[in-house]
């Protein structure tokens, strides 16, 4: 069938950045985790780096619009993400992989991704094809009809990534997508991220510095709920000198940028 380009696809975006935050304050429970964060993210792969507890997961949840900011402004795909309503339209174009995601054990991979496609309001006629495409892209085609409970950790992660990209998102949020993947799968994921990053705003949270060096066009470095650094991987590498610990230039740069404010509470 001849593919028609819809008006929605040709419409100008109406926003300069997929994500724009100013003075953003986020709370996990009663604790303020992120405070005074200013951020603008456009198309490309943005690596979100930082030590454990820096607020990466909380920030990603806010970007996924499941956590309402406690203060400041946050615009996602040109819509304010601070209210209780008006989220439906931007959410159709967001893909989100939480750090720990649950699933129904008896569902097959295909059923899981199809169910998520339904929840994301992918038009019914497109669901089977979109599902197959997403499963193909993460390399799970041979497991598509296996039950979720039979998958290994790395395969589950990939099924999670498949559900995140099933609606062809404009903003893709992946929280620790490389956990549990073996080295070859990580290389494949980086390639996928680079492909997606050509026309999508991808935010990948990770604590593996080498992932960022290999796949990301931009890096956000967070520590203690603040943005310490925003730039390119090359700029991070340039910040480090031989006196900083680390095995690669980017690791030394990471150590250098985080070392400035002395981390409290032990050597870890």
């Amino acid at each position, binding site marked *: *069938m*001849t593919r028609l380009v819809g008006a929605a696809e040709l419409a100008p975006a109406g926003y300069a950045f997929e994500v724009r935050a100013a003075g953003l304050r986020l709370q996990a*429970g009663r604790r303020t985790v992120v405070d005074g964060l200013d951020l603008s993210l456009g198309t490309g792969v943005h690596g979100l780096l930082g030590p454990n507890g820096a607020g990466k997961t909380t920030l990603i*949840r806010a970007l*996924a*619009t*499941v*956590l*309402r900011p406690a203060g400041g402004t946050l615009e996602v795909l040109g819509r304010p993400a601070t*209210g*209780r*309503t008006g*989220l*439906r*339209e931007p*959410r*159709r174009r*967001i893909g*989100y992989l*939480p750090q*720990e*995601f*649950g*699933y*129904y*054990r*008896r*569902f*097959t991979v*295909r*059923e899981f991704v*199809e*169910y*998520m496609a*339904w*929840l*994301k*309001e992918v038009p019914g006629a497109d669901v*089977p094809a979109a599902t*197959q495409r997403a499963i193909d892209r993460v390399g799970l085609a041979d497991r598509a*009809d296996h039950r979720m409970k039979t998958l290994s950790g790395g395969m589950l992660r990939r099924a999670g990534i498949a*559900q995140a990209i099933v609606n062809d998102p404009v903003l893709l949020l992946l929280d620790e997508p490389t956990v549990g993947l073996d080295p070859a799968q990580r290389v494949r994921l980086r390639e996928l991220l680079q492909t997606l990053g050509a026309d999508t705003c991808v935010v990948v949270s990770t604590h593996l510095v080498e992932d960022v060096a290999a796949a990301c066009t931009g890096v956000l470095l967070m520590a203690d709920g603040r943005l310490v650094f925003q730039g390119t991987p090359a700029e991070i590498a340039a910040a480090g000198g031989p006196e900083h610990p680390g095995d690669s230039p980017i690791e030394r740069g990471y150590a250098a940028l985080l070392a400035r404010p002395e981390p409290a509470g032990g050597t870890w």
Partner: protein
Amino acid sequence: MSTEHVPDRLAGRYASGDPGIPADELWAVEAHLESCARCRDRLRLMLPARAPEVAALVDGVWAGLLPALHGAAPAPGRRRRRSLAAWLTPAMVPWAGMSLIVAVLAVVFDGAFRGAGAGGGVAVLLAAPVLPVLGVAASWAAGADPMHELVAATPRAGLPLVLRRTAAVLLVLIPILLVAGAWTGVVIAQWLLPCLAFTTGTLALGGLVGVARAAGTLVAAWTVTVPALAATTGQWTAPLRTDVLPVWAGLMVIGAAVVVARRGGHTALAASR
């Protein structure tokens, strides 16, 4: 889409790879071929005569592909489980089983209650308001549904999805209670209104403090109120007497009104983490 097919001459030129076909015609031919099986078939029949090398290539590819295609299983048409999950998630199955067991127990213990002079169907009546509350909690609380975080981030999250799942809860529960009620001789009106009032109450309160907390509060309130009223009035079914039913109807309407007024809720992660 055009209804005009590719003329034989043009199709022949296309099949032999004639570079002289103007670009716009070429584009039109290819666009038509994508959507017209008949013209594709005509093209296939022309190939061996017009472009033997292409025909050989296609045959070669098919020869290589066919064994692999025979090995691959066709995409299964199993969509039942997913369509069902649109209403009743697998996380709610344990609740449905529990409701069934509670209903059976209520019928079994009915005789014992009768013996104690409590009147017929007391156990069914007392269980009726609590079961839907637990069902709503199972369908939407963060701890009960493993997919909660994934679902909460989707556009369908929110009141429509909650109502859908609540409808499924009631569809499962009402027949169970209907049978249990008929068995023990309880009138439907006596348990249906409290049952619905507690359901809307859970949703209304859930929009404010989270479904899990709302369910806990309501179940606790019910387990405290019933014995207290029983002690003062000497009647276990005091809150369910027919003259109290208008109160239940009122509560149901208030609950529904709050749900509608706060319909923007249920789109964020439940607060219980």
